[in-house]
């Protein structure tokens, strides 16, 4: 089976890869590009652990074909920090102890970032509904919600 050549941008870097027509973006990120920050919790769009942004839109990378990234911009958790400087969301996740095992954390961070780009001042309910596609089995969500609300406040300069 012949492979597809894809030119795309990942976290601001130009990247090229060859992929099978049936391969998902998640598989390519993890297995071909070497970015294992996005996790596979289900492979069916139900857990959000694989969340990335595609041209600024939040997607489950397990549901996106790798070939669809052609000419687009992909952002993953690895692109969140600026060198040594953590993103406010990352900092707040740490401060609020909003992770236990941490497997859901990359997806939650990417999803929360997408939320705050759209809505810098979400209510608790809005945060809860936005993150409803990101399963966390460890924390009961309490500290995650607090971390996101606090990050939003700080990013607004409140």
């Amino acid at each position: 089976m012949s492979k597809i050549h894809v030119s795309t941008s990942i976290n601001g870097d130009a990247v090229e890869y060859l992929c099978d027509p049936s391969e998902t973006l998640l598989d390519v990120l993890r297995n071909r590009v070497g970015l294992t920050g996005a996790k596979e919790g289900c492979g069916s769009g139900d857990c959000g652990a694989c969340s990335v942004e595609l041209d600024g839109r939040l997607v489950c990378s397990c549901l996106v074909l790798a070939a669809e990234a052609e000419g687009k911009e992909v952002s993953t958790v690895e692109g969140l920090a600026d060198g040594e400087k953590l993103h406010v969301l990352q900092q707040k996740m740490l401060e609020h102890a909003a992770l236990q095992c941490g497997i859901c954390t990359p997806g939650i961070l990417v999803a929360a970032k997408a939320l705050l780009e759209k809505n810098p001042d979400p209510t608790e309910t809005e945060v809860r509904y936005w993150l409803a596609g990101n399963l966390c089995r460890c924390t009961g969500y309490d500290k995650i919600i607090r971390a996101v609300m606090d990050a939003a406040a700080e990013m607004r300069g409140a």
Partner: protein
Amino acid sequence: MVTEYKEGAAGTEYSKRDFKVVGTRPPRPDGVDKVTGRALFGADLTAPGMLHATILRSPHAHARIVSIDISGALALDGVKAVVTSNDFVKQGSSGNQDTLDNCMARGKVFYDGHAVAAVAAVSVKVANEALKLIKVEYEVLPHVTDVDAGMLDSAPVLHEGRKFRNIPEGNNANVSGYWEFGHGDTDAGFAKADIIVERSFKTAATHQGYIEPHATLATMGPDGRGEIWACTQGHYMVRDMAAAFVGMDTSQLRVTPSEIGGGFGGKTTVYLEPVALALAKKSGRPVKMVMTREEVFRASGPTTSSSTDVKIGMTKDGRITAGQAKLRYQGGAYPNITAMLGAMTAFAAYDLDAVQTLAWNVLTNRPKQAAYRAPGAPMAIYAVESVVDELCQKLDLDPIDVRLMNAAKKGTLSSYGPTFDEIGLVATLEAAKAHPHYAAPLGPNQGRGVSCGFWFNFAGNTSVSMGINEDGTVSVIEGNPDIGGSRASISMMAAEELGIPFDKVRTIVGDTNSIGFNDVTDGSRVTFSVGLATIKAARAAIKNMCGRAAQVWGIDADAVDWVDGAAVPMGHNAGEFPPMTLAEIAKDSAKTGGPIAGHHEVNADGAGVSFGVHLVDVEVDPETGFTEIKRYTVFQDAGKAIHPDYVEGQMQGGAVQGIGWALNEEYIYGEDGKLQNAGFLDYRIPVASDLPMIDAVILEIPNPGHPYGVRGVGETGIVPPLAAVANGVSHAAGVRMTELPMSPPRILAAIDGAK
């Protein structure tokens, strides 16, 4: 001051002290790796030349394997090795053999999803192609998946001819365990009651639901040396099992734990690791295996489902006169002790003159159950706490007052045998009663539920080693995978005992060759046992450092004490010397006798039981039967909270898993014995929008068995929500709910039935 302690007398470990590090909330050492995506979990590692392996699974709930023909798979391009049960070594103990047979079916398949063969190939795709070329001839047998049906004489027998210990006459061949606990005369107790309530309850099997599927990477050379990388709650357990299953010495197999993406008990056993190792051995190449989510549901252990009868007698003023429970659990196709733990915990919260619990484990055609947070206790305590609630309702008594009146306390003969030492149940109940939540008004269609919860907490085999570095910092190695922030709490205890700042300590989880043996991360044992061993390893290092200072000062080692991170002369004759800090002693260590280290190995005891009380307000929509959690508060005795954030996190996470168990989660089997909801879409765990904030109130009633008073906190939190939510729903809906999950159709049916 170094507190005096006596070896071997666990009850005397605790002494009061002022903490400097313990009880603060520093950022966790693995945090940055986890928020940047750098942390390596089970599926994140690759090796040069690596193969990918996948598993052929049974499509039948119960069948005899007549033959397996792997020749077609082996002939496919890119296939490097195939294994079946023939490639593993027969085990001496029945427990190990069961675990092996669950990894790879031998002779019979016992459930839909049971592994039959595995293929290693150059890609997942080729491996999956090859699976289709394996020909398995099955003789399909009748199956049973329900606990009560499994006990009937007409039920198909799973393990023909196998004898189980201590099973009374009158039970069929699927009953693999029977237990009785209790004391006193229950007949006399019931005779004294003014009111007796007797009810039957059912709970569905639920899955631990860790977000990270099982994953492993194994290598094995022709020299017979092996390496395994795996997400597990216990890498020594993986080493021992995998080595035994492929027939090699444990010393030749090194297991390194990855970061672990949740376990909750479900990663205390092996599924893939021995298979990957056998394939690596056969192919001579590294082999990676990762379960799909569907495989996690179909073939890794859920907890047991249960069917329980409870009878409780009470006087008019709320004193329980007798309690009795009959618990029937099924945990799949192999024997397990979860029903026994249910029978031991059912009435643990109460101080009773007469109590009796009987438990049966029944074998069924479902996956081999695995431990799930306080295994056995949630379903048992759900049934008991539901009946206590109904009694309070019938007698118009306050549910917390009644629990206080009957609460177990120091000196109570527990329902499972021993007499309790210091326990925190009364304090926890009093805190719940005094909390504003308990007095808050309820709206229409709302109900408030209360429940107690209990878990034993375990201790066990533990090894810790620490090195004092020349720059005055400390490196700690522990051997228990960090599942919820334990590296932080271990570093904190090391810093506390040594008298140095938290950020001078780094704790890592070593591989199986780094330090002595460790039991799996289970039974809420890590902060207690590893903490205990860390404190004692620190004391060993302190003793060494005091000796170094004594040498330098030219005084007796006994005349040196350790205060605030420094050696100081003690007593009138010791002489006047300024304190010598850890950093100063470490800097000159090469000149005063060599490296300074401390280590401690122990089979720890004295974990100290933990009680919790949960309060919940629910609103039930009478039109749809949908339940909304409006408010939730957890009260739990932590003994001493080392890092309160992670204690709260355990309490909140446990509560939400319990809420899922109460309202949504359920293994659903069809008539054909196949699992119908093997995915997160149909097996719905709680999501953020289902929940309010979960308030966590930590109580600290020191555990006499730990130097700082620590009790395990990981498990108790999942115990009370089942009954708390059920009691809340029963009040809100005006009808007693007796089956979990309380899905909307079930609640509607109950409301309609009561009309």
